[in-house]
């Protein structure tokens, strides 16, 4: 090729630009550090004698994070600087106390743990992956996503470039219906698929503030993803990124909007034909609550020709069965039924409800989703206030605060950036180059319940 006439490549490496977006509203201190003041004073006097009034030695403090670096030292510790290292307690157990703060312990609800809230806050504010030393500190396994481990490969890598090869891992997924074979002589009328660079969209959240919608809309545009909304007047400046939920009342507005993707209630409404006839180039997705018969509903809708299924659980990740199960279970069931019926490759599955941590994304994909929707996590990232339980979709107790949309956008971009990086960590460890390969690949996961039965076989139950 003649270098004079060669055109520059249009290839752009996908990258999410994160930058600090510090908390606007004060967050609770994780630890509450306090000193017994009389004993502290006595200790200072004692040390003054011991070190012959050598001020530098006497006042050298047992904290390397500056908790006692304020004017009044241990008498008025700078609690926000405490990281819970416990050195002050080790040195002066008769004087110092460090405990998790009451405010911290009250964070969240029965599903959102204080740790999870802090994780999202930090991810949204820093745009950096949480890194810690000295091993894992949590529960062994657990229910739902906590009971799933992802696989790794000792020698197979996406590239041979170690950490520098991660940019070659694709996290892009398609939304829309795909023809399973070429039928010569017949024109396929299904609309083209749409791709998103990260397998995450923003799911619908009732009762959002105008500024929050704007932040969500702008973040969706920046990230190249979409946001689902039942209220088409919200976020309308970003309508090319909007996935409206059409119903009988709003169908005319939806048709006028001509969205690229549209959702409707797949269980209670028969809008599919109307939407696909009136919007032939739009992708039509049926929203289906996960419950006992969700698999059959999904198969029926897939046979009718819907382009995608949005399967949702409640905001705590529990499905709507009489005896609620975790979304990982019911999602797997629907996916496997669609596979069995030969329908799975024809529809896109979006899963939402209870996707609150970065690891939930690959785990939901392993359970059968193509991509996920996030909901209350958005509000947590924007420092919404917990007022009670956040489980129910219509009455969740999470009050959005007043925000600057630009700040909100950056927080959400940061969150996506961090989750994207963590998804790449998981794929990288597995030796996978494409997130699409992960879909339904249960063989690359390990389930706590199964492993426990295999490995502890032969060990009697304690009586």
């Amino acid at each position: 090729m003649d270098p004079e006439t060669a055109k520059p490549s249009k290839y752009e490496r996908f990258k999410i630009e994160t930058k600090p977006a510090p908390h606007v509203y004060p967050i609770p201190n994780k630890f509450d550090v306090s000193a017994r003041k009389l004993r502290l004073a006595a200790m200072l006097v004692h040390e003054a004698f011991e070190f012959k009034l050598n001020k530098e030695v006497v006042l050298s403090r047992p904290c390397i994070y500056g908790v006692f670096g304020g004017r009044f030292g241990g008498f008025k510790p700078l609690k926000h600087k405490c990281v819970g290292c416990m050195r002050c307690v080790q040195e002066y157990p008769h004087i110092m106390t460090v405990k998790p703060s009451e405010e911290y312990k009250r964070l969240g609800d029965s599903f959102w743990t204080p740790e999870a809230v802090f994780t999202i806050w930090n991810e949204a504010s820093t745009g950096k992956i949480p890194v810690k030393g000295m091993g894992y500190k949590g529960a062994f396994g657990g229910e739902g996503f906590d009971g799933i481990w992802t696989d790794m490969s000792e020698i197979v890598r996406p590239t041979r470039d170690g950490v520098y090869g991660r940019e070659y891992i694709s996290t892009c997924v398609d939304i829309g219906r795909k023809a399973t074979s070429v039928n010569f002589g017949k024109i396929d009328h299904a609309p083209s698929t749409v791709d998103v660079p990260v397998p995450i969209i923003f799911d619908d959240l009732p009762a959002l503030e105008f500024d929050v919608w704007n932040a969500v809309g702008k973040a969706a545009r920046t990230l190249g993803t979409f946001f689902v909304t039942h209220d088409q007047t919200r976020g309308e400046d970003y309508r090319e990124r909007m996935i409206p939920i059409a119903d009988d009342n709003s169908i005319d507005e939806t048709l006028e909007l001509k969205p690229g993707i549209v959702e409707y209630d797949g269980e209670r409404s028969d809008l599919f034909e109307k939407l696909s006839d009136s919007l032939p180039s739009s992708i039509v997705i049926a929203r289906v609550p996960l419950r006992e018969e969700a698999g059959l509903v999904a198969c029926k809708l897939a046979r009718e020709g819907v382009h995608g299924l949005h399967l949702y659980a409640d905001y705590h990740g529990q499905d709507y069965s009489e005896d609620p199960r975790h979304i990982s279970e019911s999602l797997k069931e629907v996916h496997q039924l669609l596979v069995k019926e030969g329908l799975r490759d024809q529809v896109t599955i979006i899963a939402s409800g209870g996707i609150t941590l970065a690891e939930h994304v690959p785990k939901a994909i392993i359970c059968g989703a193509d991509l996920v929707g996030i909901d209350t996590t958005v509000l947590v990232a924007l420092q919404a206030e917990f007022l009670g339980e956040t489980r129910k979709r219509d009455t969740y107790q999470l009050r959005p605060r007043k925000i600057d949309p630009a700040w909100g956008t950056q927080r959400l971009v940061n969150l996506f950036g961090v989750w994207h990086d963590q998804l790449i960590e998981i794929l990288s460890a597995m030796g996978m180059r494409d997130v699409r390969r992960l879909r339904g690949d249960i063989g690359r996961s390990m389930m706590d319940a199964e492993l426990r039965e295999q490995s502890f076989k032969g060990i009697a139950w304690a009586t």
Partner: protein
Amino acid sequence: MGNLELIVEKHSERIHHGLDVLPSLRYGLPAGLGNKRWTAELILATYEMALTGELPKNGLEYKTGDSGGGFDVLGWKNNGFAKVDEDSVDLSISLNKREGGKIEIPLPIYGGGMSFGSISLNFMLARARAAKKIGTYTSTGEGGYPDAIVPYRDHVITQVATGMFGVREETIQYAPIVEFKYAQGAKPGLGGHLLADKVTSEVAKMRESSMFTSLYSPFPFHSVYSVEDHKKHVDWIKTVNPRALVSVKVSTPTDVDMVAIGSYYAGANIIHIDGGYGGTGAAPEIAKKNIAMPIEYAIPKVHDYLVSEGVRDQIVLIASGGIRTADDIAKAIALGADGCVVATAEAVAVGCTHCGNCERGRGCQVGITTTDLELSRLIEPEWGENRIVNLYNAWSKRLRSILADFGLESVRELRGRKDLMVRHK
């Protein structure tokens, strides 16, 4: 004595005193200490054992954590076995079951890899000295072989990992055991990462790199695609140092059993499986919690497969990654391991609180995972050595007691005896 010396002396004295008195519970159980895996009681019990060399007598829980699974839901049967004398119980294991030099260690434990740079030289020295005193081993980790630990070289395992930091002909020739680190449980499939702040001039010199530049140990070995390639590695080490045993450290993927058998056919003496719940270096939280299976599940999988392939008695199976107590060790052996590698517990013995701030600011506040010169001096090698030796002495007593209760005269008889355990809900 200058002020800096006085300050270091003051704080190290006070930390040592605190570690001695906290387990007495005179000031209660520190509310901010510990987590589900390393509970406050477990940490204090470890301090106590490191001080006295005895098991805690004041009721501190020293056997299990509170994680709700794995080792923490396994217990021991109590069905009136004919006991044997504790003093007659043999805790030694062999680290080579193939041809070649025989190495035995008096306890089914050796120290895990923690690299120079990720930990302080003083802590490294404390570990090496303790290994020598006990007659076991410790591992360099992947950070080179500081001159200061050369005197202990008969008890130091040289680790060869993907970054090849500090791997030289003489460091391989020093070693009685060479450990290939294919992966590590805390960040399986992700390689190693030493943050720029820790790459001081000494660390940079040791790793032949630039100061204050992040160092990656890229995953995986770029020269290994197969068992045959892996054998090439083993042959390379055996050529450079024919007397060295070769250990292969891997993580715990779904096919960990296949990896183990591959290592056997490549000529390894030790297959070392490292579960995800341990690890001392900084790692992404997502990796620690979510990638690869816990060691409790991997051990029986590998043990059973090696048995079914008829090679179990020709390779040593070592487990690590979440081994916190003597009971964990005994359970790991009962699940099928020959012995265990321990690292975090050694750090706890010298004052680690498992707070996880190893990579923050100047590094560890008590001088363990830091290269800060002042903080590093909080651990005097001799003091650290004594505490680690004491911890292992206490653990030996517990191991002997478990074995004696079952009428077993050797820890080797415990291997694979799942029938001696019970599961709690």
